[in-house]
C-alpha cells in the first residue's frame, strides 16, 4: 500500500493540480484494493474466529511436525543448532495490553516471519533435492501463515473497525547472504521454532478472544 501511495505522491509532484483532484479518489481506491475488508465480509465473526483458530491450530501443529522433520533431516547436532542465538530472526513474543494490541502483535509478527520462511525454504531447496519434505512443508507453511495473517487481519477489523490496521513494512530479513550451511541449518531451525512459539501464542490469543465473546454483539447484529 505504501508503494501505491508513493506512486500517487510521485504523480502529484508532476502535476500538483491534477494530484489535488484525484488524490482522494486514488487513496480510496488504494485502500479498497489493499484492505482485506472485502474478504472479511464473506464470513461472520464466529465463523471467522472459528476458522482462524482452527487454521492457527493446524498451522501450529504442522509447524511442530515440520520442525521435527526439519531436525530429522539436518543430521547430527540438530538439537544443538536449534539452541543457537540469532539476532535477525523475529521474536515470537506477543506484546500489548489489550486483546486488540496482542492480536495486532500477532499479525505483525506473522508478517515478519513470512520473508524469513521464504528464505529458509530457498536455503532448504538449495541444500536438498526438490523433493525435500522440509521445503515442501515450508511452502505449505508459508501459505498457511499468509492465510492466518488474512484471518487475523479480519479479526482486527472486527475488533477495531474504525482504526486502520498498520501493515508492517516488507523489509529484508537482515540475514547476511554469505551464511554457511551450518548457519543456514541453525537459521531455519530457529525460524521454525519461533514460528511455532508464535502460533501457539496466537492460538491462545484467539481462544481468549473466543472466551471473551468477541462475536456476541456482531452475531446479534446479524453480521
Amino acid at each position, binding site marked *: 500500500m505504501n508503494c501505491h501511495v508513493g506512486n500517487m505522491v510521485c504523480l502529484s509532484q508532476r502535476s500538483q493540480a491534477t494530484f489535488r483532484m484525484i488524490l482522494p479518489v486514488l487513496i480510496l481506491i488504494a485502500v479498497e484494493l489493499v484492505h*482485506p475488508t*472485502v*474478504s*472479511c465480509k*464473506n*464470513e461472520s465473526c464466529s*465463523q471467522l474466529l472459528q*476458522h*482462524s483458530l*482452527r*487454521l492457527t*491450530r*493446524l498451522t501450529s*501443529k504442522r509447524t511442530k511436525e515440520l520442525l521435527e522433520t526439519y531436525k530429522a533431516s539436518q543430521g547430527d547436532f540438530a538439537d544443538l543448532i536449534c539452541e543457537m542465538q540469532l539476532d535477525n530472526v523475529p521474536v515470537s513474543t506477543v506484546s500489548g495490553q489489550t486483546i486488540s494490541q496482542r492480536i495486532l502483535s500477532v499479525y505483525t509478527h506473522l508478517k515478519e516471519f513470512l520473508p524469513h520462511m521464504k528464505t529458509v525454504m530457498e536455503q532448504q531447496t538449495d541444500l536438498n533435492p526438490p523433493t525435500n519434505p522440509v521445503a515442501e512443508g515450508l*511452502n*505449505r507453511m508459508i*501459505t*498457511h501463515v*499468509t*492465510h492466518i495473517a*488474512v*484471518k487475523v*487481519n*479480519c479479526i482486527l477489523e472486527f475488533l477495531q473497525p474504525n482504526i486502520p490496521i498498520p501493515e508492517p513494512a516488507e523489509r529484508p530479513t537482515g540475514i547476511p547472504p554469505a551464511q554457511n550451511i551450518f548457519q543456514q541449518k541453525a537459521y531455519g531451525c530457529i525460524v521454525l521454532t519461533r514460528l511455532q512459539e508464535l502460533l501457539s501464542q496466537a492460538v491462545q490469543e484467539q481462544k481468549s478472544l473466543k472466551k471473551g465473546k468477541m462475536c456476541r454483539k456482531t452475531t446479534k447484529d446479524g453480521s
Partner: protein
Amino acid sequence: MDTSCNLLLLLMFLHYAVGFTNSCVKILPDSSSSIVLEVGKDFTATCHLLEGSDYTSDDIEWISENGSIPKQSYRRINETAVSVTVNIDSNLNGWLKCRAAKQSLSFVPPCVYGISLHAGYPPLKPKNLSCIAVQEDKDISPNLNCSWDPGLRNPLIDTTYTVYANVLGTTQKHKAECNQYLARSCVVNLETFPIHMILKVWVEVKNALGSEQSELQNDSSYFAKPNPPLNVQVLAEVNIPTSLMVTWKHPIDRTIMKLSYAIRYRKAASEVWIEVPESFTRGYIESFRLQSLEPYTEYVVQMRCIGESKSSYWSDWSLNVANSTAEAKPASAPDLWRIIQPTANNRNVTLIWKDPVKANGKILSYNLSINQGYKMFESPSIKENTVSQMYSMELPPGKMANIEITAFNSVGASPKASLFIPGSDKELPGVEDMSWSVLDGKPESKLQVKWTAVLPPRPTLHLSEYLLEWVKITQSVHQTELQVGWQRVPKNLTITTLNADLEKFKRYNISVYPIYKNHSGHRLFQAGRPVTRPAYIQQGTPIEGPTVKVKKSKKNSAELTWDEIPLDSQRGFITNYTIFYAIGNTKQWKSVTVDPNVHSHVLTDLASETDYVVNVLVSTEAGSFKGTDCTFKTMKYGDGEVEVIVVVVCLGFLFLTVFIIMFCLRKREVIKKMLWPQVPDPSDSSIAHWSPDFPIKADLPKEDVSVVEVDVFDGKSLCEEEKGVLPLKKDKYLSEEHSSGIGGSSCMSSPRHSVSDSDEGDSGQTTSSTVQYSTVLGSGYKGQTPSHQPPAFARSESTQPLLDCEEHPDHLNESQSRSSYFRRGRELEPGVLAPECDGGSLTFCPVQEEEVSPVTEEPPASALSYMPQKSGYRPQ
C-alpha cells in the same frame, strides 16, 4: 527444381493470402486474418475502386464461396464504392471477393480483392459450475477439479475455457486453461489447499465473439471431499443381543475439517439399507451403538462422513463391515407338521418340523412330547445335528395323538408348538376343491394355488389357517419319499403362491389342509382332510418312449400293449399316446391317437400275412417322444378258419363215405352183378337133376370146368376156387392146404412164396420170373370117374406176378367164409349138395375137399387131352 517450384507456389499463396495488393479495388473492413462474424448477424462490406482505376461502381461484383451475390444486396455508395450486406450463417466460411471487370469485351484486366470470413457463435455462459478437491493422505489435495455445463451450442470458432481460483484476502490467482471445444472440466492447481479460507473460483469462456464466466465462492471446505471413515469396526455386545457397537477413526484431522458421520446398516440377507438418523451421529464422534436389532442376525454396516454442518462433499461409503448380534431365547415356536401314511393295521405318522422363524440363535435340540389317547406315549429329545428334522411313530387308526415340540438354543427354550392327530374316523372336513396354475416369472416361475374357503363344522372349532403341502413324487408312482415342504396361509386367504423351489419337470402332489383350532379345553390344532392335486411347475418333453409289445396278432388285426413310461421320464402330464404303424419298410405311416390312460389298442384293417412296424409316441403339452419300433406279422388265416375248413372237409368226406356206403347197400345187387357176373350154377343145371343109370359122375359133361376169372375185387375167390382143384395136385400141395402152390391159380401169389414152393415141388423151374399157371380141367365128366380120378391141371408159365393171397394163407380161410360164390352155391342147394359131397360127387364143396383131398389125390389115371392154351401154355 523442386525447391524453386515450392518457392514459387509459396509466393503465389502469399500473394493470394494478403490480398491483391496491386489490385485496383479494396474491401473495407479489411484484415490480414479471418474476420470472425457472429452467425445470424448482418455483415456489410464495401468495395472501393482505387484511384486510377478504369472501372466504375457498375463494374463491381461481389462473390462469395457460394457464387455471385445478387445485385439486390448491393448498395452503391458513390462512383467508386459499392457495399454489400450479407446475413451470416454457419456455412459462410471462406472468401468474400470484390471483382471489378468490364461487362463488355475489354483488354483491361479485371481486379479482384477478397477478405476471409469465419462464422461462429459467442460462447454460452457455463452452468452448474462445481469444483471438488479430494482428500489425499491426511490433507486435501491442492488440485481443484472444476466442471460445468458448457451448453449444447458449438461455437464453431476457437474458444478457450479458463478456470481461475483465488483465496480471498490474497492477491494470488491460480488458473488453468482448457482449449478444447465444449470443455466440461478443468483442473486448477492451488499449490496448497486453502484450508479454512474463502475460495473464489470462476470459469471464463472466451472466443473472438465474446466471453462469459460463472463464479463460485465459498468456504474452501465446501470444495473438499473427505475420505470415508477409517478402520470401521462392528462389535457384538455379548449381553445385549439387539445391539452392535460401531467404531471408526476420523479420516482427517479436525483442524482441517471437522466431520460428522452417517451410518447405514442392513441384514446380511437383505438388500435394504437402514440409515441411522443424522441427528444421532452429528457430533465429532468415533463410535455409535446400533440398537433394536434382531438377535443372532448378521448385519452389514457402512459409514461415510461430511464436513460439519454439511460444509463439504459427502465422502464415499466405506467398505462393508459385518458382524452378528448375540443369541437370544427363541422367540417363536417351531413349525410342526405331520405326514400320515396308512398301513394295513396301523398308521405310520412322520412328524416333521422347521426351525422357529425367530430362532434367535443356533437351535441345539428339540423336545418332542407325544400323547396317545390322553396318555404320555414318549418324550424324545432330538438333537439338531440329526440329518433331518423328523420323527416317525406308529399310531393305531382308532387312537388319537397330541404332539408338542419345543426348540432349544444356547440361551433358552422356544414357545411350544402343538398338533392334534385324531382317530381315522374323526377327521375334520377339508376344502371342497382346489386348483393350481403356474405364474410365469423371471427368473423362475411360481405355482399359484387356489382353493375354496371352508367353514368349521362345529362351533367349538375355529378355522385357524390353511396349510399347503407339496410332496415330490419320485420314480415309483405309488411311493412318495419325504421330499416334502409346507407353508401356512392365513385363514382369510384362498389363493397364494407357493414359496417353494419346485424342480422343473418333476411331479408334485399339492395338498391343501384347513387347520382348525379347538377351543374346548386345551387349545388343539388339528388338520382337516386334504385335497390333493398333482402339479408340475414346468412340463417338458418326455425323455423316453413307451416300449410297445404285440400281444396278439391276427389275420387283420393286432393287439398292442405298452407300459406307462417311468414317472421321471414323463416330465409332464401325458396328453395322449399316438400309435404309428406301417407295412414293412414302406414308411407309409398310419396313426391312431388314444387317451393317456389307455395302454393297449387293437389295430384293425391290417393286411393278412404282412410284416408291420409299429411304435408309440407319448406326448405331453411340451412335446413328444417316440418309443422303439416293434415288428410283427399278421396271420394268414383268421381265427377258426382252419378249423372250419377241416370240419367242412371231414364232414364232406364223411358224407361222401356214407353216401357211397348207402349207395353200395342200395345197389349191392347191381354191384354184385358187375363184380361177379352170374355164373351158371352147375348144381342148378338140368343135368344136376338128371339121374342117369350110370354114375352121375360119368354123366357129367366132358367139357372143362370153366375157369373163373376172378376180379380184383375178390381175388381170393379164385383162390377158393383153386382149393377145389387142390386135391388134384400132388400130396405136397395138399399138405399145405391153403397154398395154391406153384401154379396154384391165377390168384396173385408172391414170387417169393412161389420160389420156395417151386424149390420144393419143382426144382426144375424158377418162378422168380415165371409163374406157372394151371388150368384145372374137369376130367371126370361123362363117363369118367371123377371121384377117383383127380382133376388134371395144366401148368403154364407166365410172367404175371403172383397174388398176395398166396403169401397169406390165412386170408384164404377168411376168403373161404366170404366167398359168396361158394356160399351162394351152398345157399342155393344146401341140403342137396352136402350129402353129395360126402358121396364123392364132383361138385364144388371146398369144406369137404380138405378132408377128402388126401384120399382123392392120386395120380391121374389117364392122360387127358388138354384144351389148347392161349399164350402158349406148355402142354403137359
